């Protein structure tokens, strides 16, 4: 690029960029017939720092080029320099609205790599955490999505209920957001006694609140006008572009990893998979609302099934630290404790792949060991990443105001996308 002086700086930068876009935007952009417009990175409706380069014909979107990377923090690279136990803390920071799903995906991968067992009770505790996370994430999605489309009050109600869940996370793990509660081999600690009453209270309190949201939105003519027939993804397109989770189910494909390829004992719970018909913004909204009700159902069953006593993490001392009570009595326990918290455990030089259903869709972890105590490669495929990649297909021919609705409906978190 030519060295820019104060006088020609703008011109030089502009010419550098436009040639790069040849083939990506239509030829009309080069003659000035259509307008290239940056939306973001600080537009409030882009949910974080997403920049979308729009080619506009009047108010209509001709092409749309999302630009990500503003929240890239090198988490995958960082993991290669940490022991497996320490990596768990980093996974929270990717998708900061669904920390436990990310913990879970990584822990399942580690457990598969080293062939570690997880006791039944730990699996039920994990399911409780995961479903609370799902409700938590959907509440933030609903609030911000409605806020983008001008319904302010829904946002306030959703965050009121979310506060309830964050308090429960604090009881459970000592942290409101970055829980790091799920660890390889089980969970960090047993459920505190005050947690279950709080959960029962929440299960009583929450379903009527979902009815409230539905009263505010589902049959609201303004809401329907803004969302129906907007951002339609055909089922074939959704599969080809790697769309997953509620966005895929909104297009009418009944695919939920909790049902299709169950993990953590999900096959023992009785729940339905809500499926949309038209694949538009409205159907994705309905699917997520119904999913919250299904999560409540799963939580009820999990709370009923949870044994009062039992192990909350594996007894395999080569991978899971011993309880503190043993440290004063057993030399073996001290050795294991010391080894696990300094050196960590070793995993074979092999690769595993694990995918789970996070609130946003399929989160998958590709984990490659080195034979030592650190991974060679951790790769997270995150649903936000795939959904933003598919954004150009969804927005073609829509108005610029609909872009806001579409971005809201695919439920993206930029920390999740950029990692």
């Amino acid at each position, binding site marked *: 690029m030519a060295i820019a002086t104060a006088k020609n700086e703008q011109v030089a930068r502009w010419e550098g960029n436009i040639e790069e876009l040849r083939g990506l935007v239509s030829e009309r952009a080069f003659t000035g017939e259509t307008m290239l417009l940056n939306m973001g990175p600080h537009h409030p409706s882009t949910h974080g720092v997403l920049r979308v380069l729009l080619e506009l014909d009047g108010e209509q979107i001709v092409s749309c080029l999302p630009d990500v990377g503003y929240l890239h923090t090198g988490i995958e690279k960082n993991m290669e320099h940490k022991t497996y136990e320490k990596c768990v803390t980093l996974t929270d920071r990717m998708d900061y609205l669904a920390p436990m799903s990310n913990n879970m995906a990584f822990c399942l991968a580690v457990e598969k790599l080293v062939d570690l067992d997880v006791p039944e009770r730990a699996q039920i505790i994990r399911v409780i955490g995961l479903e609370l996370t799902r409700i938590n994430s959907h509440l933030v999605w609903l609030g911000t999505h409605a806020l983008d489309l001008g319904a302010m009050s829904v946002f306030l109600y959703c965050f009121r209920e979310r506060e309830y869940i964050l308090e429960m996370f604090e009881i459970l793990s000592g942290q409101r957001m970055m829980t790091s509660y799920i660890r390889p081999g089980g969970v960090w600690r047993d459920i505190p006694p005050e947690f279950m009453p709080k959960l029962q209270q929440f299960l009583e309190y929450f379903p009527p609140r979902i009815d409230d949201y539905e009263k505010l939105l589902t049959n609201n003519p303004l809401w329907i006008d803004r969302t129906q027939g907007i951002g339609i993804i055909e089922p074939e397109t959704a599969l080809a572009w790697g769309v997953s989770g509620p966005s895929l189910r909104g297009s009418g494909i009944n695919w939920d990893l909790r049902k299709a390829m169950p993990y953590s004992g999900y096959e023992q719970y009785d729940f339905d998979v809500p499926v949309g018909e038209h694949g538009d913004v409205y159907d994705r909204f309905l699917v997520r609302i119904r999913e919250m009700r299904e999560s409540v159902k799963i939580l009820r069953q999990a709370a009923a099934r949870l044994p009062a006593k039992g192990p909350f993490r594996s007894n395999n001392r080569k991978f899971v630290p011993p309880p503190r009570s043993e440290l004063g009595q057993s030399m073996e326990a001290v050795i294991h404790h010391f080894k696990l918290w300094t050196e960590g455990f070793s995993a074979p030089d092999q*690769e595993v792949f694990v995918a789970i259903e996070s609130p946003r869709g399929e989160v998958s972890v590709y984990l490659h060991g080195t034979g030592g105590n650190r991974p060679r490669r951790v790769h997270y495929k995150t649903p936000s990443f795939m959904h933003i990649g598919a954004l150009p297909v969804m927005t073609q021919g829509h108005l610029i105001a609909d872009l806001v609705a579409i971005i809201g409906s695919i439920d993206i978190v930029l920390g999740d996308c950029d990692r």
Partner: protein
Amino acid sequence: MTGIPQALDPAAAVRAALPEAVQDVIEFRGETTLVIARPHIVAACRFLRDTRGLVYNYLSDISAVDYLEPYGGWGDRPERFALAYHLLSMLYFRRLRLKVYVPEDDPVVDTVTPVWPGANWLEREIADMMGIRFAGHPDPRRLMMPEDWNGHPHRRDYPLGYETIMFSFNVDEIMKHKPFAKE
């Protein structure tokens, strides 16, 4: 089940259809990995997607690994880099991994975007972070890093930040990557 054709063994099916494509079949913890020769990856992907009894219709993930060891070389691996394609068959509820080894001096692989358009960003990320180019990719710009960035951060010889402890054996390597002001 009626109406659904009998599921085929992916390794045997690919071997029969593309005899030169499959170099190795690895089983680990219940996961099947087919090591595919580099020129055949697009054909193998298309075959696995379109064949009755296989129907790997969904591309879950593409990841890249760098096998560089701390003191050089890549152990007993045939090449320095490898790509891992994770396919999912929604009809038969099973997954498959295709692995392609990519040499260090010629890191180019054919793009699978004609088979799955969703591979677009996954490949862009790998090209950006691992420096493996994809021939025929529709949008080869950098994805995560700034467009004027030097190097590929996920390579194993790319330092994590600039805080590596300097010793006489690695001082040159570290100084090479330091962001000194340029003339």
